[in-house]
Structures are given as C-alpha cells and as structure tokens.
C-alpha cells in the first residue's frame, strides 16, 4: 500500500482540486474520512485550542503537536497534512519537526515564514523572518524527510506584513529552495485569490477559513480558480462549538438534553464511530473472555 506521503502527493498533483477539511483530534479526523473526503488537514491552531484552550501563539510543544497528529493518523486511513508551524525554532528544530511528523505518519506538513513567536495566520502582529532564513528552513525540511514524497508546503505570511508582491516573491524563493507546494496565507481580495494559482511552477494551496481575512469561497469556486488543494481548517471545530454550546445551554436551562436527542449523535453512533463492535469481535476472536457485551 502506498504511504500517506505518496498518496497525498499524488492527490495534490492530480488535475482535480484536493479538498482537505480540518480536524483537531482523532475523532474529528475520523469524521472527515467518514464523510467521504480523500484527505484531512490537521490544524495546529485548532488542535492546540482543543488541547489547551489557549491561543495559537506557538505555546504547544513539538512533542505535544506530533502526538496529536499521531493519534489522528492512527484513527484514519487517508492522508493527513499536518501543521509544522514555523518549525519550532532553528533549522535544526525544523529538521526534528519533519522527522517527528513523518514518524507520526503525516503525509506532509506546511512550514511558515513567521518568527519563532508565531501567531495564527489571520491574527495581527505577525513577525516574519527574512526570505533567506525561511528558504534555509525549507531546504532543511527537504533534506530531513526520509520519504522523498513527504510533502513540504511552504507557507508565507507576508501579505499582512509586507504586502502581496513580497508574499509572491518570497513564495518563489521557497519553491527554488525545494518546496513542493506554495501556500500564500490570508489573501485579502478577489484579485489576489484569482492571481495566486497562476503565479507558481508548483501546485498552490488555499486556506479558506470561515470569517477570516480571506473572502469565503465554496469548493466549486476554488476549483474553478485553479488551486491544487484547499484546506478548510475551521469548519469542524466551529460546528462542534456551536453544537456543544447549544445543547449545554438547553441542558442548563431545562435540566434535560432530551429536546435535542433527535439531532444529537446516539449512544450507538458513538460506539460505532470508535469501533466498539470491532473491538468486541477482536476480544472474541482472540479468546479473551468478555463478561457481557457492551450495550
């Protein structure tokens, strides 16, 4: 069977747009797969939020981030693109990150040109390293991967800091340094969105986040513009917050969640999703006595 890296690379290179809905833990990754998508994006910012309820300022360690990715990879069978943030330090840290994410089973990572004290791409107050420094990080990442098909996506955060022209110039340097895919973060206008896919010799990825600085584009429009891949990081997370809040409010107000049962997942759905029937079958198959079936 092809590795996740090989499959992710093939899908990005294929003529159709690859859509990667976001996930933030193993269960949301599994839901993305269950819904019929071909690949999953594992968001650094949202998985950090799920894990620590802290903002995406590079607070979570590489050990924690890669463990979260490994959990999602183990729970799914389609490729995952992971968030390599700004590489967690120097070029040496970049190389360690690539090895850890590859070992975690990700099919690829994106690596951005922010300084170490990084921020979510759609926040203000971002600081960039020089294009030369980031090109060095890209070269280090390329040199560190053990599978040459592990996808290295170069992300530039320059639009909000130094403008669109500089972002394009930077991304071109990162392509020269060996990046497989270009990811220009947070384009702000339709013109920028239209221009980007045509400006590079490698596939271009677009980040579409509900309510961000980038105008929201449905998949059909992203495809029409010629992007190779699109991540929709926030959809699952925002939907979860919305649903949890709604039911929690109802439960607080009335002391019962019953009015929502028609829309909530059922006990059986939960068990099926995490594989309880399959686990019971394994216990039976390997002769481990079970006292009573789980109901």
């Amino acid at each position, binding site marked *: 069977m092809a590795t996740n890296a090989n499959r992710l690379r093939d899908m990005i290179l294929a003529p159709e747009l690859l859509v990667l809905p976001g996930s933030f833990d193993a269960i949301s990754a599994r839901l993305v797969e269950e819904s019929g998508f071909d690949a999953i994006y594992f968001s650094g910012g949202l998985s950090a939020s799920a894990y620590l309820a*802290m903002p995406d*300022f*590079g*607070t979570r*360690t*590489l*050990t*924690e981030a890669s463990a979260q990715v490994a959990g999602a990879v183990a729970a799914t069978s389609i490729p995952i693109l992971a968030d390599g943030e700004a590489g*967690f*330090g*120097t070029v*040496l*840290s970049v190389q*360690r990150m690539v090895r850890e994410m590859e070992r975690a089973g990700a099919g690829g990572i994106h690596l951005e040109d922010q300084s*170490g*004290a990084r921020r979510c791409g759609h926040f203000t107050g971002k600081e960039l390293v020089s294009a030369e420094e980031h090109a060095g990080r890209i070269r280090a990442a390329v040199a560190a991967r053990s599978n040459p098909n592990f996808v290295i996506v170069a992300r530039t955060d320059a639009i909000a800091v130094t403008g669109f022209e500089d972002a394009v110039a930077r991304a071109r340097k990162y392509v020269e340094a060996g990046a497989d895919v270009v990811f220009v973060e947070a384009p702000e206008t339709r013109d920028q969105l239209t221009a980007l896919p045509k400006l590079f010799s490698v596939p271009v990825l677009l980040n579409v986040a509900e309510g961000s600085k980038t105008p929201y584009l449905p998949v059909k429009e992203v495809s029409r513009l010629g992007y190779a891949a699109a991540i929709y990081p926030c959809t699952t997370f925002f939907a979860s917050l919305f649903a949890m809040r709604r039911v929690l409010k109802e439960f607080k107000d009335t002391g019962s969640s019953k009015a929502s049962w028609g829309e909530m997942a059922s006990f059986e759905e939960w068990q099926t999703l995490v594989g309880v029937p399959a686990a019971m079958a394994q216990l039976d198959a390997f002769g481990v006595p079970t006292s009573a079936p789980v109901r």
Partner: protein
Amino acid sequence: MKRGGNEQLTQERTADKPGAAPPAPSATPIRPKTTARRLRELLSGEDIVIAPGAFNAFSARLVERSGFDCLYLTGGGTGLGLGLPDVGLMTMTEMVNNAGVVADAVGVPVISDCDTGYGNVVNVWRSVQAFEKAGVAGVHIEDQTFPKKCGHLFGKQLVSQDEMVQKIRAACDARKDPDFVIIARCDALLVNGIEDAIRRSQAYAAAGADVLFIESPRTLDQIELIGRSFDVPLLFNMASSGKTPTLSAEQLHDLGYKLMILPIFTLLAAMKAIGEVLTDIKATGSIETIRERCSTFEDFMDLAGLPFVQELERRYQIPGESLTSI
C-alpha cells in the same frame, strides 16, 4: 500522594542508625513541607548549598544517597538522554517529563533547568506551572533568545533586558506555590560583558527573581565582583567547559555565593566509566577485567528500590505466596 513510595525509600536511606528497622509504610505519608519550602530554608541558612547535577532518576538517587541536600537537573544532560545537543531542540514537554521522574525519585529539592522558558512570556507562564506540577522546587530561566544554546557555547543571542524582566514577572506570577523558587539566569557576560550582566541581573532581582545566576564568569575578578554586587542569593555554576575557574564550595561561600550547581560532572563521570568498560569488553570479549570496576547486581536492585518492594510484600503478604528476593 504520588510520592509516598519514594519518600519512604528516602527515609530508609537516611536513617541515622545503620541496620535500624525502616519506618513502616504509611497509607497517607505525612508531607509536612514542600521541597520548595525546603529549598528556601536551605537558601536562607548559613552554609552554601551544593547541588550536584542529575540527568535521570538513578543519578538523582545517587546524589541524594551521597548526602547532598539538593540536586540540580541538567537540561543539557537530559537532552543527551534523547540524543540531542544542548541547542534548544528538546521540547518543554520532554524536559518536564524528566523533571517529574527525577522529582519523584528523591526527597530532596530539585532545581531544574528551564532554558528560556521555551519561548515568550506565554510559554514562560505555561512552563513554570508545568515544572511546578512536575514537583521540582525551583527553575532557572535565562535571557537568551529561543531556541537557546548551552551557556558555555559562543554565538548566543539575548532578548532585551525589558523582555526578560517581563518574563521574570510572568514566571513569579505563574507559580501557584509562593515558595517555588524562580532563578534568573543572565547569559549577557559572554555577549555584552560583565557590566551589562550585572545591570541586567539587578533588574531581574527587582522584577522578583529569588536567586540570580550569572552564566560563565571567566575570571576570579568577575566572580568576586558578582559576589559583592547583589543582596539576593547568588548561584554559581561550577561548569565543565573550562571557561569558568575552578573554585571550591568553601571559596564560593566566602565570595558571597549561596548555591553551587555542578550540572554535568556526574554525567561526565558516567560517560568516562562506561566508555572504559566498553573498550575493555571490545578488546577482551569478556567481563573479567571490568567486574571490579562495576557496581553489583545487589547495588542495582537496591538503587531501584527493591527493599521498599520487599517491605511492602512483607507487610501485605498474601498467605502462601513467596516474597521477592535476590
């Protein structure tokens, strides 16, 4: 209380009378004071506190059994355990895991390396709480940029004095136990010189640091100058790089220092001993020539805590089951 077992061991080891019956294990060990409080008591005493370095639980137990009141957990040594050089590659999670293991293995206060706090003030906040939860008595945080380099390497870069002052304030505010000791380490001496190192350290003391640590003084004059420049307790790093002059605890006490750490000498001793033994095994294919230089199997089991397990087995013996013995 998760430390119960190891504290029992510690009490057994430090019993005054050799051969005296060990105290009976108690289901709820009494913990009259925290190790952070104990460290503060040591720092306010008359004597200089010597904190040899440990790099894992077994070296920490050896430090404690050798009669030291305090030990130092080295980041560089912990990194070597992961096969990483001391240039900021090890994550905070990895260091905190080791700190928790080491703090659990001993009863004496553990002072842990906390590098730069692993990032900005937000990382400092999270790091201090993580190390405190791991059970160490205090940490040192340094004014290098993230990722840091070993203090005795050239090519270090500093954050501004203003930023480091905020990091010290964040560290002090983040601790939940007010006794938790925040040590401000200043790396400016190799970068900007002694005057800047002293000026910065004064600002770090004013920001709330409990102990000051000026990294890698090069001369006795610098060491003396540092010794008479501050009111807060001073830490001296008896480093192995050769950049720092060799001084004894007694000399340092007389120069005004309160705490002497020796971060990696235990590790260097182990490296040399292991290397020599391996050379012999490679040459002879036998253990004949090395046996007398090795600890015994009994030592090994004893350090790991078998006597405590045997004591538990005796105490809660199930009729008909035999006890573990060597």
